[in-house]
């Protein structure tokens, strides 16, 4: 009975992550890892690894729609992805080599940086139109977005979208769709490293994947009439708090 209870607990958490992440307009990774570590008591490396595998599932689901609608800029995605994937592998290898206690603190610090990026984005006007520029800078910055993904078990969309929209001047809708497609590929590169080393908890992957998809649909429906700017602001502050808690300040 105990494994079933644990599975239901994980799935309910997944529904919660799906609701909140779709309301805040971000991928679930930034919320999943702190939830697994701080609430479910999972080891940070197992949480990161399982989060990356779950992200492959959620990204596949959303990018199928974006690819069909022709919103993904394949040229940009596949130009940026090799350096992003490389970054993810480097990030995953760094995390595996560090003791769990230190990873927890580094993750907390990373979460603080991500929450600050999110706060800045809340007050930045995204570019709606434009021709793609600064490819070299985009490729170089993508390496670090990939590294964050591999190190922290996040999709990295929170960094990829600003790189494509603010640095490369890709229109915001295209940047979101392209990032959504790239996230799955990046998570796949990072998760291979963790999976081979045996860090993945299959119950966490299954529970979160099965919870996030209906949760995201529910979140998108309940978003109607709510101001997403305030939701993003609250979410960034919650992440900031989780980051501070993980660092141990």
């Amino acid at each position, binding site marked *: 009975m105990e*494994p079933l209870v644990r599975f239901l607990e994980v799935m309910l958490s997944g529904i919660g992550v799906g609701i909140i992440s779709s309301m805040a307009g971000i991928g679930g990774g930034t919320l999943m890892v702190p939830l697994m570590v701080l609430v479910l008591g999972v080891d940070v490396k197992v949480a990161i690894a399982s989060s990356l*595998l779950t992200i*492959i*599932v959620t990204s*596949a*689901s959303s*990018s*199928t*729609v974006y*690819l*069909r609608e*022709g919103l993904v*800029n*394949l*040229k940009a995605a*596949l*130009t940026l*992805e*090799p350096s992003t*994937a*490389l970054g*993810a*592998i480097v990030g995953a290898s760094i995390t595996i080599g560090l003791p769990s206690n230190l990873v927890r603190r580094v993750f907390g610090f990373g979460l603080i940086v991500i929450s600050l990026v999110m706060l800045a984005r809340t007050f930045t006007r995204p570019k709606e139109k434009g021709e793609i520029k600064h490819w070299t800078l985009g490729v170089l910055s993508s390496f670090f977005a990939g590294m964050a993904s591999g190190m922290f078990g996040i999709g990295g969309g929170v960094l990829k979208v600003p790189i494509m929209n603010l640095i490369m001047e890709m229109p915001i809708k295209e940047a979101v769709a392209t990032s959504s497609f790239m996230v*799955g*590929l990046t*998570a*796949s*590169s990072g*998760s*291979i*490293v963790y*999976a*081979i*080393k045996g860090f*993945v908890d*299959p*119950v966490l*992957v*299954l529970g979160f*994947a*099965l919870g996030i998809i209906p949760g995201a649909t529910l979140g998108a429906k309940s978003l109607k009439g709510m101001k997403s700017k305030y939701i993003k602001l609250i979410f960034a502050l919650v992440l900031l708090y989780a980051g501070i808690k993980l660092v141990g300040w």
Partner: protein
Amino acid sequence: MEVDLGNLPSLLRWGVIAGLSVLAIGIVIEHLSGNPLIREAGLFLIVVTPASFLVSLSYKMFREREYKIALLSLLTLSVIVVSALLSLR
């Protein structure tokens, strides 16, 4: 750049659905018999879904003479494969 992908995007969705189904069955079997093989197969299916999409994409793009996209997807694929090989060491 407009590229007609046809039914190719469905590969991503069906790949992970297949992976999750095998994983669910594998978890139950492991719980009953202690054999982790099917569970591992489920995880493997999920992890290789994006890579198999890239293989199919590059094949389709080569056939449609979109050589730039085809080569870029092969480059991404090679990075993923190299990462797997390095992790095995």
